């Protein structure tokens, strides 16, 4: 392994990186104060790090090549764990039982803080699963996913606090309708709207926004799609920032009510309820995504991802298929938006930037595009790790970026690659 040739290669690599990072790593200039800080020790760090990493880099490549050869010979090795789980019922149910017990006991054992960050993590799970429909299944790179998240959050915030022109409009409408029908029934639409009504409504509205975004971008190929969706995401944020009458501008909307669980709760007491609600929503999402994956629509999405022309030639209306993917993905984001508004009780446009989209995308990429379990694990890792590793918070985005590159190169299928569902019925039936 450690041949002279290898060492020479790594040595050259490390020399190159020392050269490359020299001005930025070694010299820190503060042109405001006219001070220059020489950090020679960084040369050593960069040199050693790149020397060592270059071994790993080449080793990974070798393994990847070997892996590819093996892969073509027999079945995917990566799914061995899942195969094992599938084959041994006891292990599968045992593990499932452990997860369920853990999930139920979680808020009682670990207290409100842990529960609260778990709620955030679960929101990211659902966001990841939603984006997974668009990117993982249908293969449409959406960089403006956060826009629908914002739409959901603002739908609930505005309807719940009755603020801005929409609140005003609803009031006028209720007065008008009351006059028209001679009742006081319509006052209800000018009251703070209940969470339970807005949750499905926000999904619907976000879904419609997905359709609206979908229409103009239908004809665009992958890369163009990426930039246009990114632009859309920015447009929505800018509108929220600039249109004070609608969204209260950059100051955001505060005092958003928690859902009514039938008893009066303060914000700490309501945490476990929101947690269980979120657990339910995650299960619901997993259920729906799983069902979709093995359905006619889900297959059409995957075919679209694999080969658009063949997909169309096989009789699939690509327009409709793309639009459903956008709308479905968007509606989950809308749902998450409502949940984040509930959890935080305050929202502002600054929470919905491109970085948020990038993080959700890296969840999907890291977890494994198209794989539900993968996305869940990815979301938990990416949202919980930074909470526990606050000390390394500065390095978080650095690691995110590096991870995205490394995953694409060495493990494009993600942590858990998507295992194609097989249709068991056939074997039994033996037609």
């Amino acid at each position, binding site marked *: 392994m450690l041949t002279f040739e290898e060492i020479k290669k790594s040595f050259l690599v490390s020399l190159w990186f020392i050269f490359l*990072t020299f*001005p*930025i*790593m070694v010299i820190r*200039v503060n042109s405001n104060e006219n001070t220059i800080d020489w950090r020679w020790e*960084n040369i050593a760090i960069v040199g050693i790090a790149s020397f060592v990493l270059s071994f790993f880099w080449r080793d990974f490549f070798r393994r990847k090549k070997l892996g590819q050869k093996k892969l073509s010979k027999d079945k995917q090795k990566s799914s061995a764990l899942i195969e094992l789980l599938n084959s041994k019922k006891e292990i599968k149910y045992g593990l499932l039982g452990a997860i369920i017990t853990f999930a139920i006991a979680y808020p009682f054992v670990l207290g409100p803080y842990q529960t609260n960050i778990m709620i955030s993590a679960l929101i990211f799970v659902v966001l990841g699963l939603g984006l997974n429909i668009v990117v993982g299944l249908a*293969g449409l790179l959406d960089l403006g996913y956060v826009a629908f998240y914002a739409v959901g959050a603002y739908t609930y915030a505005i309807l719940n606090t009755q603020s801005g022109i929409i609140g005003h409009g609803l009031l006028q409408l209720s007065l008008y309708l009351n006059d028209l029908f001679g009742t006081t029934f319509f006052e209800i639409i000018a009251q703070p709207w209940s969470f339970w009504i807005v949750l499905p409504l926000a999904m619907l509205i976000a879904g419609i926004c997905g359709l609206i975004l979908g229409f103009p971008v239908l004809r665009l190929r992958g890369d163009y799609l990426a*930039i*246009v969706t990114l632009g859309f995401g920015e447009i929505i944020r800018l509108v929220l920032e600039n249109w004070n009458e609608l969204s209260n501008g950059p100051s955001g909307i505060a005092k958003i009510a928690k859902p009514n669980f039938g008893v009066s709760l303060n914000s700490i007491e309501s945490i476990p309820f929101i947690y269980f609600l979120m657990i339910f929503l995650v299960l619901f999402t997993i259920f729906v995504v799983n069902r979709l994956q093995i359905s006619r629509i889900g297959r059409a999405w995957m075919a679209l991802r694999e080969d658009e022309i063949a997909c169309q030639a096989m009789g699939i209306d690509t327009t409709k298929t793309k639009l459903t993917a956008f709308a479905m993905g968007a509606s989950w984001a809308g749902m998450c938006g409502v949940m984040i508004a509930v959890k935080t009780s305050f929202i502002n446009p600054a929470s919905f930037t491109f970085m948020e989209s990038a993080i959700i995308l890296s969840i999907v990429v890291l977890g494994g595009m198209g794989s539900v379990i993968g996305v869940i694990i990815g979301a938990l890792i990416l949202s919980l790790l930074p909470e526990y590793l606050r000390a390394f918070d500065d390095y978080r985005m650095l690691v995110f970026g590096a991870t995205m590159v490394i995953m*694409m190169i060495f493990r494009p299928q993600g942590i858990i690659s998507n295992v194609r569902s097989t249709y068991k019925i056939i074997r039994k039936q033996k037609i």
Partner: protein
Amino acid sequence: MEHENIKYFLELFLSGLTKGSIYALIALGYTMVYGIIEIINFAHGEIYMIGAFTALIVSSVLTMFGFPMIAILILATGTAIIYSSAYGYTIEKIAYKPLRQAPRLSPLISAIGMSIFLQNYVLLAQTENFMKFNSLIPEFEWLKPYKEIIGTEELIIIIISAIVMIALTLIVKYTRLGKAMRATAQDRMMARLVGVSVNKIISFTFIIGSALAAIGGVLIASYIGQINYYIGFIAGLKAFTAAVLGGIGSIPGAVLGGLVLGWTESFGTGYISSDYEDVFAFSLLVLILIFRPEGILGRSTSQKV
């Protein structure tokens, strides 16, 4: 009053021209890389930022040693070009080359990752604050009376982006290298068969694109007077929009796209409101892509079936 209106129009036109030239300078790099390997090099904005930072560092160090202005200008720009090119070259080798055969989504995600990584690399290794960037461009004495209309830096930005565009077009059209680049762009396999060293050509494209980004970085930072780690992302996003607008892959398209974008923003600001400046820009992009998915000057490529 009539006179006033025309003057205002011309002023906005000029401000759009400056802004557009800035976008165009960066957009050229996007378009070249896309033209040859059909990868959106999301990290291009970061290369521009690194170019500006390198120039800042070199010029600060040289100022400390008391070098004369003109030496600083040449050395700082030269180093910025070398370093940006080196970064461009390395990025291609690390993040894109292993993904030549991968599905289209992979290099794009890798590029986004690279962009985030480089931003935070500079943030951590340097500073999160805005740093003063002393203009490296000496002010033209003869232009002083016209300062109100156009400043030295603005003029230089406009001229350089025009020169760069013409030079690039000539290189691609008439030199051996340009021919090899076009061959690689059209059919990588065939190019390889007829003896073009495809990897070298791709590296070279990245190097040229990054060198342009460095020139852009020095000029623009001189014009604005301050830099931080995030400037690459903002400018890169707009420049990329410009490249797509003009027809990504087309060199005159990138410049035209930049100018159209610059004018849209500046007239939008002047006659409507700057509140929605970016909304104008992105809406224009969406509109153009709906009616001309290949961009203003892009070739429409029918997919091979």
